[in-house]
């Protein structure tokens, strides 16, 4: 189809699943989608797909706006990069012409400086995807950035950096056409109208950061490296408080009517920074920090150097606990210290001192530290966990354990079931695994169409309406049932890639801390290893896989 699904298919076709993702032979794909350039709200998105240096498994991360729109107009549906430049370079795709230019002068530049410099050099019509110094230095959770938005998770920026590519520039002049323009325009208007409704009000008015107080109340806000589920300093960093004490502006991706982005002012500058729930949790409670300015400054720094805020906060929070326990010789690295957070970010970007460990993420760091620290490294398959404590949100716990990308809230939205009357979130049973599967399948399709997940609440019948959208755009006669099958094939393709990359059933788990200790504030939030295993078995069988999670096809068993 497009987006993540097409990207995984392209990577499988390259046949390099077993390769080191930072090697010359590894492939990285920028993938557009059928809907890019259409009048459908939130459709201006692109996917970046590669093997992750953080997880050594499949990684697909999404970003939005001008790069997607302009890239589609080049006439290419995807850009697959293999090989390695001799020196730091820039790939320029100007309609159907592709050239590689020297970019040595851009070395060490932040994302915003690099994009500003390239706009001067190439002209404003070019749209740019860049890496910051973290990508150049192959920090395992480096991002690829475009206009302040990021293909954030899993370290695709390090893969680009390993190819010595500082940026991709695209400019196109082709016109995107649709099968049924009149019908599509009418459908798009209805979808836009619905996107102004109550299902998206929270994104518009407060942004995703408004989850913070609710998660804190339910004791599922990961705090001090998942040692607690609530944070005493939560009020001072909540968006409800920040909007009173700071200037705030709202923004949106190109071609989006929701406008979920909330940018907060930084003290002493005219600058602002986007703040999402995940960034807020990871750089705040996860590191024990209740000083809003420290969190906002750290978020800005992550954006500029080009690192994923969830993995940054998760890895540094883990390091803070290691330092506290005496496992790491860094007495300055203490929970609650905003200056220590900033220093740790600086060190990991250039692999200085303990930054060498931090730059590899919490799993690799734990393996090098030893002393059973892997038990409390906040990761699944090497990907740092998002801000959902799986002990009190057990459907989400299953989603994080089994997902191909690792611990993740965008490829599995199983938390939707936890926040509903459909399950008891503290005592989820195998009879409910279909809810996790439905969420994962929906995400697979949305990431391949591509549409923003914040739209999911506005569909009455997601599968049927998606079939209608695809027909209006492409003319394909596809049914809702066929799209469900397509989504399952995408999930299977990711699994197939992982199997070829060396996956084994033992990877589908949660950190030992989550299975050995209940949440101190809420002893009923407890998930035993046996119960998680029973959920995983039920999930695998419901997927049509073996009980252990192997694909049934001969190919998948390799």
């Amino acid at each position: 189809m497009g987006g993540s699904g097409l990207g995984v298919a392209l990577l499988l076709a390259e046949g390099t699943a077993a390769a080191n993702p930072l090697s010359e032979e590894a492939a990285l794909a920028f993938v557009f989608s059928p809907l890019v350039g259409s009048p459908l709200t939130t459709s201006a998105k692109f996917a970046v797909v590669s093997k992750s240096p953080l997880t050594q498994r499949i990684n697909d991360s999404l970003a939005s706006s001008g790069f997607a729109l302009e890239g589609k107009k080049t006439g290419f549906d995807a850009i697959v990069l293999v090989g390695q430049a001799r020196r730091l370079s820039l790939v320029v795709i100007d309609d159907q012409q592709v050239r590689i230019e020297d970019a040595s002068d851009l070395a060490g530049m932040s994302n915003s400086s690099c994009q500003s410099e390239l706009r001067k050099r190439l002209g404003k019509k070019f749209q740019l995807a860049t890496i910051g110094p973290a990508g150049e230095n192959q920090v395992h959770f480096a991002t690829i950035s475009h206009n302040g938005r990021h293909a954030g998770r899993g370290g695709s920026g390090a893969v680009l950096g390993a190819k010595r590519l500082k940026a991709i520039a695209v400019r196109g002049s082709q016109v995107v056409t649709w099968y049924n323009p009149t019908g599509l325009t009418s459908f798009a208007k209805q979808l836009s109208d619905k996107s102004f409704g109550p299902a998206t009000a929270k994104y518009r008015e407060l942004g995703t950061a408004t989850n913070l107080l609710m998660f804190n109340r339910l004791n599922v806000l990961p705090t001090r490296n998942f040692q607690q589920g609530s944070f005493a300093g939560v009020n001072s960093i909540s968006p409800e408080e920040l909007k009173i004490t700071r200037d705030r502006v709202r923004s949106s991706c190109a071609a989006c009517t929701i406008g979920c982005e909330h940018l907060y002012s930084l003290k002493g500058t005219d600058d602002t920074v986007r703040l999402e729930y995940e960034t807020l949790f990871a750089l705040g409670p996860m590191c024990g920090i209740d000083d809003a300015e420290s969190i906002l400054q750290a978020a800005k720094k992550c954006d500029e150097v080009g690192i994923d805020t969830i993995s940054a906060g998760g890895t540094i929070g883990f390091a803070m606990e290691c330092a506290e326990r005496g496992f790491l010789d860094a007495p300055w690295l203490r929970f609650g210290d905003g200056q220590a957070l900033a220093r740790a970010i600086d060190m990991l970007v250039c692999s200085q001192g303990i930054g060498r460990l931090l730059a590899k993420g919490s799993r690799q760091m734990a393996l090098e530290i030893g002393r059973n620290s892997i038990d409390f490294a906040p990761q699944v398959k090497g990907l740092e966990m998002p801000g959902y404590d799986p002990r009190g949100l057990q459907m989400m716990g299953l989603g994080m354990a089994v997902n191909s990308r690792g611990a993740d809230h965008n490829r599995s939205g199983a938390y939707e079931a936890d926040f509903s009357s459909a399950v008891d979130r503290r005592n989820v049973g195998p009879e409910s695994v279909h809810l996790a599967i439905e969420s994962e399948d929906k995400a697979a399709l949305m990431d391949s169409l591509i549409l923003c997940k914040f739209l999911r609440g506005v569909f009455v019948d997601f599968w049927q309406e998606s079939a209608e959208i695809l027909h209006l755009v492409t003319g394909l006669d596809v049914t809702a049932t066929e799209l469900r099958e397509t989504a399952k094939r995408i999930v299977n393709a990711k699994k197939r890639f992982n199997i070829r990359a060396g996956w084994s059933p033992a990877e589908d788990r949660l950190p030992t801390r989550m299975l050995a200790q209940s949440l101190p504030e809420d002893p009923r939030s407890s998930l035993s290893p046996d119960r998680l295993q029973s959920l995983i078995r039920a999930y695998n069988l419901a997927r049509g896989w073996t009980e252990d999670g192997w694909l049934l096809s001969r190919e998948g068993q390799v």
Partner: protein
Amino acid sequence: MRVTVELFGIPRQRAGVPETEVEGSTLGDVLLELSQRFPALGEACLSGRCLKSGYIANLGGDQFVADPDIRMRDGDSILLLSLDAGG
């Protein structure tokens, strides 16, 4: 029954307060009382005795509930929040 209602996200924005106390025998009674006391909250999040799509209630931090006929007990706490997470 006297019930404490804790408000989060859009419900809090519309009501203008983080918490309030209301009388009601059922969840539906509580929601109706909230609508009357905070018309902006009622308009955005509630439809008579029910929650509008996109919003959910939680009983005491434990169980998520939507059935307006659920009985309240004196001293119960109801959390009113936006449905989707994400971010």
